[in-house]
């Protein structure tokens, strides 16, 4: 027996709009917020084609955009990873190594061109747009296996004309998307690309490189630096997050943690003791009943 259905009071209902009925997919597509994000994705895909064409990829340059367009049309959840992987495949194939230049001493003195920067911009814009579109069209929260899936609900609603559907709050309501959000996105995209370019220039610059110790290859030294820096940042962020979590923990959570620690240390001994105690109690109970 498994809890396949969600435990809850009867008739938890939801509504994304003021009418109390979530809009259907066709209605959603014509919503201004959805249209805006769709246009953003299409523009980003077009820019991606231009950037890839500039690298001399000929007809292959349309492959990521085609995949992106198709996934945009079908609202496939794995669309952005597929586009990214196809892009990685294309760019990886056309990298210097594939042309026979083995270990070109890294491109430390190579500076990003405008097309590289535009490609980053296009990819980021597409990824942000598509994921936000998925939040509007598919789901923003991970689906709960105990709840009925929104697609099946929508089907039910169409067929049986049910007035309200539970679980549709998984989607983000398009009414909540405002101009400020779009403006913020337009403002943030160049900043992230600029930040990445500056980090690249900073990390690959000779100024901070210094002397390579132990005579190890330069690439290995750079990789070690990046790995250790990333680990340090992750550890610091994790520590801060953990501290914040414990700071805001309730007394029950703290008590539960202490109890859990005690139990983990002594669970075998406690288990043996309690097993015998239970056995003795039941034995006494059986004796009492038999009298």
């Amino acid at each position, binding site marked *: 027996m498994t809890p396949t259905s969600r435990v809850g009071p009867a008739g938890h209902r939801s509504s994304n709009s003021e009418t109390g009925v979530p809009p259907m997919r066709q209605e959603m597509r014509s919503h201004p917020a959805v249209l805006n994000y769709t246009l953003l994705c299409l523009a980003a895909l077009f820019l991606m084609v231009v950037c890839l064409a500039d690298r001399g990829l000929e007809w292959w340059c349309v492959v990521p955009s085609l995949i992106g367009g198709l996934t945009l049309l079908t609202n496939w959840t794995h669309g952005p*990873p597929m586009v990214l992987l196809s892009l990685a495949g294309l760019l*990886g194939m056309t990298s210097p190594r594939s042309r026979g230049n083995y270990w070109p001493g890294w491109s430390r003195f190579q500076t990003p061109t405008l097309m590289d920067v535009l490609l980053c911009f296009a990819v980021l814009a597409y990824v942000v747009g598509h*994921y936000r579109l998925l939040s509007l069209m598919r*789901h923003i929260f991970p689906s709960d296996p105990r709840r009925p899936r929104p697609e099946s609900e929508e089907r039910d609603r169409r067929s049986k004309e049910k007035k309200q559907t539970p679980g549709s709050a998984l989607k983000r309501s398009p009414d909540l998307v405002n101009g400020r959000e779009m403006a913020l996105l337009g403002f943030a995209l160049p900043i992230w690309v600029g930040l990445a370019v500056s980090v690249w220039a900073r990390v690959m610059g000779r100024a901070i490189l210094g002397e390579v110790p132990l005579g190890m290859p330069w690439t290995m030294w750079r990789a070690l630096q990046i790995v250790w820096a990333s680990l340090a940042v992750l550890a610091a962020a994790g520590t801060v997050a953990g501290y914040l979590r414990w700071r805001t923990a309730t007394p029950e959570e703290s008590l539960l943690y202490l109890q859990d620690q005690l139990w983990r240390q002594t*669970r075998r001994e406690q288990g043996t003791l*309690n097993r015998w105690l239970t056995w003795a109690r039941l034995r006494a109970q059986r004796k009492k009943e038999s009298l």
Partner: protein
Amino acid sequence: MLTSRGCWFLLCVLLILSLGLLRPSLPLTLVGLTLLLWFAGQWLWFLVRLPGVRQLRSEREVWDDRSVVATLWAGQTFEVRVRLINEGWLPLPHVAAEDYSPFSVDFVDGSNLAQGTVAAHQQLEMTYRIRCGPAGLARFEGVRLQAADWQGFFYHVHFLHAVVILPILPLLTTRPSQPASVKRHNLLLPPGIHRFRRPGSGSELLDLRDYLPGDPPKTIAWKVSARRDRLITKEFESEVPVRCTLFVDMSSSVRVPTPSGVGSRQTRYQKALDRLVDLAAGVLQANAGIRDLTGLCLFDEHGARNIAPDRGSTHRTECLRLLAEAAARQPGQQCINPAHLLPLAYSFAVEIYPELLRPGVNSVPWAMMWLDGFSGYSHRLRLGFFELLHRHKSALRTLCWWTSFWALVLPVVLLSARVLLRTRSLDNVLLFVLFFAPLSVFATWAASAFLFGVDAVAGIGKRRRDRWRKQLAAILSVRYRLAPGGLATLLEDDDAFSLLLQRFLSEHQVPYTLPLYSPEGRYLFAAPEKVSVLAKALVRAVGKGRDNELFVLLADLLELDDALDPLLRAVRVALGRHHQVVLICPWPPGLELPPSAIRSPRSASRQGAKRRTGGGSRTTVLWDQLTTRRFHLAYQRLRRTFTRMGVAVLCAAEDEPIPLILSRLERLRSLGRPHS
């Protein structure tokens, strides 16, 4: 918490970055770096705003048509308004809030969901309407919050506990034939006052007797005295209020729920107690209408709670509140296999206590899942092979270690012994041990490995059950403030764990069903102890009663013939004191009425229709017929037993309208009272 969408994206970005660095490709590296930085920025931004989600403040109001209310009424519709206020200085991530409405109400319209990005000092609002079910308690647990970033990469669930418990009072029914509470005729007594044929200070003449010194002169019947030539005094009737005491059965037998139909998303359960509470409320209302004093006694198998007879709105409200609280109680039983309640309780805990199920505070060691298991000392004597294997994995492991130990030690001991005494038999034994010890070790380890493998494949459900049990036991141990070893006790003791599970579900007003019979076939909810409790309560009420009391026993006494003696004695005492007793027996919902209880043709035709349309397999039909027959016989026996003593027995069936029962009570009261 990273969602699967976020996981896939991060994996792709790391792949791109690695490829860009290793191939090497500058644009690929730049793309990967851009995406990684953006992802990290989103994570940090989400993390910074997350504490604000836990610090949201909620306000809840329940409105009727006019104003905010603190009590609800069964069957009525109310509006719930919930506000979530962000008191922090940062905007929250995208939040979806769902108000967790009680199990005892039905959703009518509106929305208990709201979503949005709540800016600082702004609020989310939800408004929806509910219709109350039967009498009981409506427990509003709080608001379930789900937070995510706009891309759906990060996700956090939090439950904002804001418990509000409102009583759902039973609906008061009005009787069309009920006499008005105002005096309409000069001959009628004021409401609530009834004539009683005992000397008293009333206005109606009862008798004449000889004058006794001390009698007031105004009571002397002068004309009669003159005619008889001695002083004769008039005696008047008493005018007393009729006091009615309701004895309502709250034992497990009337609290056992039975499914009464499937609603929109939930099976509704009906208890015999609901009907009793409705009847008690109806009698209370009817008595209040004629200003009779009404007392209440709630009893179960453990004890009784009394409220002295009184009248007035405060007393009535208090009685209704007590009835509502009693109606909200769920059945409790010790000898229940916790597996019956575990999925429901865990699923509920996932909804309400997500923060207490985090692996950080409530972990499940992998060794427990895969190597140990826990035995959970069970009442069940016959366990299946896979269950035994799952429970005693640790014994298997111990066996392996002991075999290995002895396989090493025994040859060494025998070799040492052989150094000291050289005998042929010892040589034989040594040879035998040297040959078979490694063989037995190998065989034991191989067999154990095989059995562990079998358990790994066949024990998926059992491992899940163990995980649920451990996590729930930890929550229960903390919630009910058990000693530090409480968690281990709950893991081993099925009875203690089962009782706490029932308490947990009952406190949260989660409806649940329990098996009616023990593995040995014994009915678990008969509760014969309640008969002696009821008898004591009745004797006590008789002792405290004055004149002309009406005792209404709303008790399930079916199939308790062997235990009825104390109650019969108490009833005899009550009748001997010239009181009246009425027994109203609850009837299991959905079961065919006994022949004597079917009075209206409509009800009879409905019963007949039910009987004819009863589908199901042949076994089910046969089982239904047997059950019905058994209950009918039990009702007839009960009726015969009490009718012999002059106690009316009524069946509080589902189709029996409350006014009908009330009118029968009124008739009984009138018939039993002379000159009234």
